[in-house]
């Protein structure tokens, strides 16, 4: 039988948005918890920080430590057991998490686009390779091409370089013109400008090519070189790794499962970060990719609102407004150019779980038809990787959410019933 805990405010996701939400909620209401599927809090960006004591994260961690927030780590919410109850799985079993108010701060994941050779070993996500470097994979002397789009490329490149790698070049698909417009905005945000300047210093001497993207990854057993394209020109660069990512995709699956309105891949929220479902708030990347600062502000607003302190939340609206404008600018600057739709060939795999090439998808008229008739998106990742690519490549609506939102042990699905176990006929 599963354990059951009850909270005034339950936060799903312990990244910056979730931590900020939990802090603000716990300052006004007693029973607050954060559930996160990783062993430690911090989310994508703070999780493996080597020295939190000197950074912004430290301030938040200290604030959190002073509050009676229950941390439920290594535990993943995967379904709803009933109104106001989530079910979550950990190594030890399943638990039911009942709440009065829920804050979804489930973050984002990298978007991958298929191109010939992208499934070769050593072609990695930019964030993924960064995480591997943090967890001890040796980067010293490795040659790395960083490619794709978004501000994350710079952060990843800087970090990999610090770890001893040689960054051959950074290929950014966005055009120089788009980026200039964006940098003008950057100037209006002094903290972001400083980050950007710091990154630039760390990447001094590394070629940064705009309007440039990977046309193919080449190699026999594993990656040996990357073919890059810029305008009419193509050339190959030898390297050990290709760190590649095409910006981020909001993690909206849990919100969708709970019935929250999702539009254009983002969870819809009102001023108080409340979703279309009463008592369910959402903060951070799921409402649209906006970066760390916006995640923190949205988290705080959601935390205040969920704890019944809307006035405290309102005090942050102006700050959020500025950051959202910035985020919208970022979306425009790093929007995927249409030419990227012709990156994959007919025989390029789109779904790596089930080995489905693009050519087989093109025979179909919708995501559901393609899934059922080609098995695309039916593997263990359940389309988490290929669906955002397919949405961009073929323009299909790829939403389809069923419990469990993550793969779980069969036994976890047998114990999700509140009260007595089901009677067997």
């Amino acid at each position, binding site marked *: 039988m599963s354990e059951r805990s009850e909270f005034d405010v339950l936060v799903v996701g312990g990244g910056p948005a979730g931590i900020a939400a939990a802090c603000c909620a716990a300052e006004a209401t007693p029973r607050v918890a954060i559930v996160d599927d990783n062993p430690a809090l911090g989310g994508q960006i703070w999780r493996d920080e080597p020295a939190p004591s000197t950074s912004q994260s430290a301030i938040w961690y200290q604030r959190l430590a002073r509050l009676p927030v229950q941390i439920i780590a290594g535990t993943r919410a995967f379904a709803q057991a009933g109104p106001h109850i989530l079910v979550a799985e950990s190594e030890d079993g399943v638990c039911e998490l009942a709440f009065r108010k829920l804050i979804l701060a489930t973050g984002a994941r990298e978007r991958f686009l298929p191109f010939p050779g992208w499934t070769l070993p050593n072609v990695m996500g930019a964030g993924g390779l960064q995480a591997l470097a943090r967890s001890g994979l040796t980067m010293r002397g490795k040659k790395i091409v960083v490619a794709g789009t978004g501000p994350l490329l710079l952060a990843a490149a800087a970090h990999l370089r610090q770890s001893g790698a040689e960054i051959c070049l950074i290929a950014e698909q966005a055009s120089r013109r788009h980026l200039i417009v964006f940098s003008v905005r950057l100037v209006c945000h002094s903290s972001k400008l400083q980050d950007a300047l710091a990154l630039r210093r760390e990447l001094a001497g590394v070629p940064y090519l705009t309007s440039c993207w990977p046309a193919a990854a080449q190699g026999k057993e594993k990656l040996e070189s990357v073919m890059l394209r810029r305008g009419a020109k193509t050339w190959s660069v030898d390297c050990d790794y290709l760190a590649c990512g095409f910006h981020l995709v909001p993690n909206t699956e849990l919100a969708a499962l709970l019935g929250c309105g999702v539009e254009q891949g983002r969870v819809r929220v009102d001023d108080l970060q409340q979703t279309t479902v009463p008592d369910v708030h959402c903060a951070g990347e799921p409402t649209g990719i906006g970066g760390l600062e916006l995640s923190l502000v949205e988290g705080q607003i959601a935390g205040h609102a969920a704890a019944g302190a809307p006035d405290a939340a309102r005090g942050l609206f102006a700050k959020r407004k500025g950051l959202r404008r910035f985020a919208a600018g970022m979306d425009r600057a790093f929007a995927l150019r249409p030419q990227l739709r012709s990156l994959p060939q007919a025989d390029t795999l789109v779904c790596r779980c089930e080995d489905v090439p693009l050519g087989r998808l093109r025979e179909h008229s919708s995501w559901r038809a393609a899934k059922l*008739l080609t098995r695309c998106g039916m593997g263990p990742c359940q389309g988490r990787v290929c669906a955002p690519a397919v949405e961009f490549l073929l323009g299909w609506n790829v939403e389809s959410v069923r*419990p469990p939102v993550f793969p779980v*042990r069969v036994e976890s699905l*047998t114990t999700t*019933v509140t009260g007595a176990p089901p009677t*067997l006929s």
Partner: protein
Amino acid sequence: MVIIGAGIIGAACARECALAGLRVAVVEADFVGGGATAAGMGHIVVMDDSEPQFALTRYSQQLWRELASELPADVEYMACGTIWVAADEQEMQEVRRKHDFYGARRVPTEILDPRALYEAEPHLRPGLVGALLVPEDLVIYAPCAARFLLRQAQARNCDLHMGTVKGIREDGVVLQDGSVLQAGTVVNAAGTWAKELTPGLEMRPRKGHLVITDRYPGFVRHQLVELGYLKSAHTLTAESFAFNVQPRITGQLLIGSSRQFGVEETSVDNHIIAGMLARACQYLPELSRMSAIRCWTGFRAATPDKLPVIGKCPGHEHLYLATGHEGLGITTSLGTARLLLDQLLNRAPAIPLEPYLPGRVMETAHA
């Protein structure tokens, strides 16, 4: 002729008729194989609840076996056989009864003692008393099978129209956009939706849940079904679960099965999933640690006597029905198509077709 619906039934009928030289148009509202056909397990199984059920399932299974060499790889044809597992002496009696029943009708079966059973399926829980192996039962992937059948029809004499039929008339069908497809014969093969176009048909949707796991090749080698299945499939009330696990060619395990009347929502019900999986874990304890990647639901079109409706609709010269296949439509699609064509051409059928004629389940006919 016009066939409404490109599920496995409509597709099989289209193929049969087109190969016989009829000019066929199929109208499909969603996509080929996207209805109940996309939800089902794809177990091609001989069943013996009644003589007519046996006759149609066996006849159809033979047709699938004949077709085997033509099926493309994506139909995932797998001749894995069924093992009916007996948990106690009462169920073992059922094993012997089934063995005699099938034997008398020349369906090969083999009674397994516990040793043979555990040799065949080492992961079953200890303490089972025996089983019946039905080696000619098989498994396919139904959506791709429907597409294959329809493509064969299209290669001969069949057009696929994407659209929704709004009504059936004497001279054909009216589509949602108001256009008319003219035809001398209309076949309603719209699955659980058939009732909307042919009112008076006594048919209820019976919901089922399924769960698929990650890949565990070789863990299970046959489709495993408990004999308690018979008890639960018979109940026409409330909800029931039975142990029913199928190996897929990918190494995945497809876990069923549940049956529910009176539920219309397509959403997954945790309570049903829990009951169904708990049952499955009782038989295959190691299943509990395996990774489940997705749950879904589907609706079976159930008639009161659990037999399909195949033939001319009473009171209509030009309208035929091919629906009501409950939990066996993937199996019986090929037989259904043959029996339909036999009626259209006034040919002698290979099995008696009276038990499937629509009159028995038309409310107007009873009135």
